[in-house]
């Protein structure tokens, strides 16, 4: 017969789910990102171009379900998803996303609601940063990957392995013919349904408008900067008085980041707690210690008694929040959006009340 395979295909069977997959990837690429120790890989086939993770629980399927979200909210190139959908349609195979049957496209409220629900579930999954399948770990190594799950439900029409095999072979032949990495289509998208996508140019303004709220608030104050000592009882610039609260907040954040992991090792040696308990108890301890802080930091802000002091601190805090949400939205849009949607209204509207 004719030889048309130009690239090697690696058939990988892994156990322990994500741990096994990460161990193989680290062994294959000879890096040490997570500290997993494993025996070396049996062989190499060069740089991997694309990967399909298959989860088949029986030899007849009624539909193939696809999962795209990867580690830290990364997504494969949209081309790979379109490839899967094109071949499913060609072989008459039913393909779904998020386990839901496809609704007919229409402008009715029910169809719109269904698409909105799919979109929001994808945003939630991407924001959590957990990979939805084994394919999620490949994305960190710049390998485009998808997970296909064979679903065997109570439907009338079932497909056997020849149909699935033809689909997979078609996809692999397409990838085999490629001369370059997948880069033509979008890397950042959201899926309201399997055949529709929203590109980054359409959804990024959402986060942009949320940050605009913060920026408008900042510029409204920045025009009359609360930092100029215009009142006679303000001799020194207010900038120096802003440093202690910022330092304390950063110290608390660093403590929350580093201490639970350090505490895990130390606490299990000296106290009769398990490691999970040690982490949780350390975090609780830091929060309890933090409850003592606002009272003290309130006294530390020198301008706390006047109108100017808290406005300067809030200006700085809003700037910092806008900057961090912007950077986060660039790296993982869904996480940035969810945090912005919850934090921006609270941060913009907060004012100190109560006894000074």
């Amino acid at each position, binding site marked *: 017969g004719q030889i048309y395979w130009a690239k090697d295909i690696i058939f990988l069977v892994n156990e322990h789910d994500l741990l096994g997959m990460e161990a193989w990837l680290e062994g294959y690429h000879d890096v040490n990102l997570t500290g997993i120790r494993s025996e070396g890989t049996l062989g190499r086939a060069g740089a991997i171009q694309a990967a399909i993770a298959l989860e088949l629980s029986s030899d007849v399927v009624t539909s193939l379900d696809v999962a795209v979200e990867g580690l830290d909210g*990364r997504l494969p190139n949209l081309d790979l998803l379109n490839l899967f959908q094109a071949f499913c349609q060609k072989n008459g195979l039913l393909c779904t996303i998020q386990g839901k049957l496809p609704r007919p496209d229409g402008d009715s409220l029910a169809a719109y609601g269904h698409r909105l629900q799919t979109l929001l579930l994808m945003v939630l999954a991407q924001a959590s940063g957990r990979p939805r399948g084994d394919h999620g770990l490949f994305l960190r190594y710049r390998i485009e990957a998808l997970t296909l799950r064979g679903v065997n439900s109570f439907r009338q029409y079932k497909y056997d392995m020849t149909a699935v095999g033809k689909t997979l072979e078609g996809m692999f032949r397409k990838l085999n013919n490629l001369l370059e990495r997948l*880069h033509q289509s979008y*890397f950042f998208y959201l899926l309201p349904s399997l055949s529709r996508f929203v590109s980054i140019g359409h959804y990024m303004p959402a986060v942009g408008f949320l940050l605009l709220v913060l920026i408008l608030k900042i510029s409204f104050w*920045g025009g009359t900067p609360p930092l100029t000592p215009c009142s006679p009882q303000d001799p020194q610039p207010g900038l120096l008085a802003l440093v202690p609260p910022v330092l304390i907040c950063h110290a608390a954040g660093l403590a929350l980041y580093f201490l639970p992991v350090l505490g895990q090792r130390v606490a299990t040696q000296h106290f009769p707690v398990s490691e999970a308990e040690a982490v949780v108890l350390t975090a609780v301890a830091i929060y309890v210690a933090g409850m003592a802080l606002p009272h003290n930091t309130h006294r530390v802000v020198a301008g706390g008694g006047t109108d100017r002091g808290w406005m300067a601190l809030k200006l700085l805090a809003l700037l910092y929040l806008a*900057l961090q949400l*912007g*950077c986060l939205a*660039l*790296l993982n849009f869904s996480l940035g959006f969810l945090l912005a949607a919850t934090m921006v209204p609270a941060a913009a509207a907060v004012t100190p009340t109560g006894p000074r």
Partner: protein
Amino acid sequence: MAAPLVLVLLAAVTVRAALYRSSLAAFISERVEVASPLNAWKRVVEGLALLDLGVSPYSGAVFHETPLMIYLFHFLIEYAELVFMITDVLTAIALYLAIQDFNKVVFKKQKLLIELDKYAPDVAELIRTPMEMHYIPLKVALFYLLNPYTVLSCVAKSTCAINNTVIAFFILATIKGSAFLSAVFLALATYQSLYPLTLFAPALLYLLQRQFIPIKPKSKSFWLYTVQYAALYLCSLVVIICLSFFLLNSWDFIPSVYGFILSVPDLTPNIGLFWYFFAEMFEHFSLFFVCVFQINVFFYTIPLAIKLKEHPVFFMFVQITIISIFKSYPTVGDIALYMAFLPVWSHLYRFLRNIFILSCVLVVCSFLFPVLWHLWIYAGSANSNFYYAITLTFNVGQILLISDYFYAFLRREYYLTHGLHLTRQDGTEAMLVLK
């Protein structure tokens, strides 16, 4: 004043020592914003290894430091971290002493002009008092030592810190009035990285002012002093270059160091403006554009010298800023040097128009640099255009900052001689406009 300075020095050294011991040190020394091909520590180590093998360090187009630097580290390689902490401390002390002296000069000049009735009657709020100028040297040392840019540059062990020390000593020698030391340090700074050549003009203007020699082309003493200073400078430069020749017994270092700085062959991304342009350009245009870009650094010296001949230290500040924006391989260490001078002009705050927006732009761009680098190199979803957009915004922010300070300075000088409340011929209120 010594006790707060010592406290600041201790705090700075502690921060640097803590960062050296952490795992961030390796990450920071890889960052392109902090280490350029001219001053990366990795390349110094490579050059020293080649020197130990008996091969010329310049064979291989990796090493671009001067021979004096190789020999400095040849003997001090064991104490590299200590060397960089000490250079930062020395720079801060040099700037502190220089600004202390400069404040005295400024105050004396102000007193003279008030007594000569050169100031308008209603400018009492613009006159500077010794009380407000008392903390400025400490603030300068603080701004240099605790600036995150300086800390990053020190932790990455980038030799930019040593360049900054030499320039700081040059400024100290100039302000103290010693023409010989000033010429020697300027020659060293030029020898290290070509661009401090443009600081010759402000140093000359300051020394002439200090000797009370009028700056007129017809005056003989003006030309005599200029020729003296230029001769000191050129002779020191020639001596240093010949010394480098005898250290390594070859002239290899001239194309490797100065040829590299001027012809910009390495197009690794950095925070400068050169790399993207030359990556996109066709070969037969590159010589023309290299000349255009390099002239940008030297071009502003003459107009600034004509406009700012009464204020040579401000001229020096503007020139240092222009060097760190337009040089071929800038790093954040260069930015840290001119930012250290900002407290000296804090009396201009009321005339600055865009300081809030510009500082926001600079801070946001500094945070976006690593994010977009990650998206480009590691995630593969952005490309060089995004990174260059941030580079452009950052440099435009810096240029607007220095123009703002320049305009504020000139405005204050105008108000001092013409009064704060300007009126037109018919008595209505007038506005000052820069043409």
